[in-house]
């Protein structure tokens, strides 16, 4: 039996157009969740279908694609998605951030600063930052429309009342361009400052929830906080075992069953680059 022939990047052209329209609208209204007709993809919901649809819609034959999952290029998901695009689009892929034109990511922003020639595509599970506080979609839409975000601060207040500090460590809500409150996807709050005034275009796709949103380049992105409890990046005060970096986001690796652990850079490409530079010296 012959293998079926795919359209470039799997999606048909009309679908890509529809998604691009949504993306344009999202860019025009930074941080606003644009509904889109999310398609059935050959992977289940919860495995990055939103990110894949966004990537598929903006991918061109000359693009160089990098896919990371929790900072790593070689987890099952990252490998599968990279292979998916290699097969359906035939584009060049890379693990090096600096060489990529499109970077699809699950839950991390690369340590390497991005440029204006790059697009960062986030995989988003729950796009609505208020969802866990207000389950009704009708209400959250209205809150966004009226910029009625008191509830968000209620949540932060509760954290401080209960824990003495804001307890959110990932998916930390931000205010985009002074207007919409946005969920940056489950990236660690450590990564939040990277979204602010970023040279690259940041796109967010939620396949199951059918929403796309965007942060245009060089947009103001501010993490929510209180005057007397300002936003803290938070970082494990350790250095990477492999490359010695003390300013990156670290993964904790359990090495044995006696409590042994070490910390390494979450961004595998960045760590490798640093090690390469070290060796070159």
């Amino acid at each position: 039996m012959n293998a079926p022939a795919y359209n470039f990047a799997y999606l048909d052209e009309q679908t890509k157009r529809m998604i691009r329209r949504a993306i344009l609208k999202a860019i025009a209204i930074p941080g606003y969740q644009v509904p889109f007709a999310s398609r059935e993809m050959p992977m289940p919901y919860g495995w990055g279908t939103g990110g894949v649809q966004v990537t598929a819609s903006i991918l061109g034959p000359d693009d160089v694609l990098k896919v990371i999952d929790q900072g790593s290029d070689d987890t099952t998901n990252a490998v599968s998605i990279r292979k998916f695009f290699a097969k359906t689009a035939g584009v060049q892929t890379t693990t090096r951030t600096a060489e990529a034109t499109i970077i699809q990511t699950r839950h991390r922003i690369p340590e390497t600063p991005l440029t204006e020639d790059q697009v960062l595509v986030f995989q988003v599970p729950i796009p609505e930052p208020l969802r866990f506080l207000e389950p009704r979609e009708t209400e959250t839409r209205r809150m966004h429309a009226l910029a009625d975000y008191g509830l968000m601060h209620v949540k932060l207040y509760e954290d401080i009342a209960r824990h003495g500090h804001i307890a959110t460590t990932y998916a930390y809500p931000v205010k985009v361009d002074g207007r919409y409150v946005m969920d940056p996807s489950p990236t660690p709050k450590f990564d939040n400052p990277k979204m602010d005034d970023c040279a690259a275009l940041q796109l967010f796709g939620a396949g199951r929830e059918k929403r796309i949103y965007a942060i245009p380049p060089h947009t103001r992105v501010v993490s929510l906080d209180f005057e007397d409890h300002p936003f803290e990046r938070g970082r494990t005060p350790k250095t990477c075992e492999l490359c010695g970096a003390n300013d990156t986001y670290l993964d904790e690796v359990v090495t044995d069953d006696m409590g042994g652990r070490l910390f390494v850079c979450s961004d595998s490409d960045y760590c490798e680059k640093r090690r390469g530079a070290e060796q070159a010296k």
Partner: protein
Amino acid sequence: MTESDAPLLLAEGLTKYYGRQLGCRDVSFALYEGEVLAVVGESGSGKTTLLQLLSTQLTPSAGHVRYRLRDGVTRDLAELSEAERRFLFRTDWGYVHQDAALGLRMNVSAGANVGERLMAVGWRHYGRIRGAAATWLDRVEIEADRIDDPPLTYSGGMRQRLQIARNLVTQPRLVFMDEPTGGLDVSVQARLLDLLRGLVTELGLAAVIVTHDLAVARLLSHRIMVMKGGEVIEEGLTDQVLDDPREPYTQLLVSSILPA
């Protein structure tokens, strides 16, 4: 506490039909700053419909509601945008539900419940927000150490008092109350009524209170409006209407109270 000469809230010919079912018909009155109006009647009288019309939760089939905003301009509430109406609700108005759970976030701490409105209007200092919440909890006689407990853990009377605090924290000028003591034990009612009475006087609040309980009306209100079957039967000074009722229905209502 100065009284302005222009009314704060003006109802003109308010009418509401639910299909062919009459909610209320042709209700008109003027409410001034610092005045409390009780709307009394039995079930089906239309009093709750009226309250919802006044607070823009329902649109009238006919008639108008006008309100004098803080800038002194009187606006027809039907002409306000959704954003303006919400803002009004959050800053200038209060709405106390009969069931406190409807007016509270049950899973969020009392302090957050009271502080929410402040945060919604831009307060960004945790310490000050908490301080304001603590002050208000004290004012409604909730122990200070309950500030971090959610109202799920509160008794009915405490929940109601918390709801009041939540509504009054932004110092509204007009408060709507729907059977504020409904469903509470008698001793709890007494405490709540006394609290309301004190706060209304102290803050110079205007209020529209819907109740079936004439004793509540007598205690809290200056003026009273008796409703039956969607119509206003009698209205006037509370003590006058209750002590010298003119209409047959009012006389019936007044005579039906069991003496203590």
